[in-house]
């Protein structure tokens, strides 16, 4: 093979390697973004679930919060079940996009034990009550009385979602609005 042809072949090989490498990098970057580290933004690394870098495999700390009627609800009562913890607020537009999806997913996977818990970050439980009166949901809603801070830390923003498998381990943390297919895929991962 003449040198010019050899050179052209090598050029195509190099381009191919670079392209494949780029695609692999993008795939990993996307995965990392799903577990993005808010500490980079808020400057408080710490070990809290909502602030630490990679939370996959971490046991979700138990909590007890109240629903809008004042009834206590604990994570431990869902032991052995796949759980979605969705941090949201009534003033959060992106959260409201996800809520109908959570309703659909709750119905679709209820028989498989899926428990979806919406954790409201509103300053007033009455705001949550009023919201739910207009837009009821078919999954559990609790109001965060700030007691989650010590073990879970502070979310950079809403929505922030944790996916917890039957062994009580967090499999994934999603910060911000995601597509329904991505959320369903994450749910499928904990069933």
């Amino acid at each position, binding site marked *: 093979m003449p040198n010019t042809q050899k050179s052209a072949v090598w050029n195509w090989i190099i381009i191919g390697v670079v392209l494949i490498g780029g695609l692999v990098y993008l795939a990993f970057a996307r995965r990392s973004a799903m577990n993005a580290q808010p500490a980079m*933004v*808020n*400057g408080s690394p710490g070990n809290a679930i909502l602030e630490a870098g990679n939370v996959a495999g971490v046991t979700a700390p138990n909590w007890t919060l109240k629903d809008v009627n004042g009834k206590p609800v604990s994570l431990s009562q869902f032991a052995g079940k796949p759980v979605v913890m969705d*941090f949201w*607020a*009534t*003033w*959060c*537009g*992106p*959260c*409201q*996009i996800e809520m109908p999806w959570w309703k659909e997913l709750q119905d679709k996977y209820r028989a498989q034990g899926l428990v979806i818990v919406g954790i409201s*970050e*509103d*300053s007033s439980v009455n705001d949550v009550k009023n*919201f739910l009166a207009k837009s009821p949901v078919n999954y559990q809603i609790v109001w*965060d*009385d*700030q007691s*989650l*801070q010590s073990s879970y830390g*502070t*979310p*950079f*923003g*809403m*929505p*922030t979602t944790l996916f917890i498998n039957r062994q009580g381990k967090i499999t994934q943390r999603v*910060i*911000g*609005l995601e597509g329904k297919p991505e959320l369903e895929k994450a749910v499928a991962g904990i069933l």
Partner: protein
Amino acid sequence: MVAAALAQLPGVAHLQAPAGVVAKAHSTVVADFQIHIDSGFHIQSNHPKLDYIIPSSLTLTAAQGVSVAKVSWPAAKDRKFSFSPDPLAVFEGSFTLPVTLKTGAPGTVMLHGVFRYQACNDQLCRPPVNQPVTLTVQVQ
């Protein structure tokens, strides 16, 4: 509520009061506040279109005869986001917020207040923030 702790995170909107305002006694003066919103974020209008949205506001408590006569918010932009079926009224970027003050007797007056806002980008929303504000007015 985690909101209280979240409010301690660095804000995405920043209000700067004018360095010093000099005014005549028993008259009016305009104090120009500067607001800067970080790129990619918006804050809600002072008159949002939807009832669940938290409006932006600036309040200053009257002191020693100096009080707020008017806060002149600029016109909000109608922007559509991936999470909003209809356009939302928002503020973005940097702008001036003129505040008209009524003055009383001569003296140096320090006003205290709060800039309240709630910011979002196309994918997430930050909790409401109450940023303390102080303004010194020299009334002559």
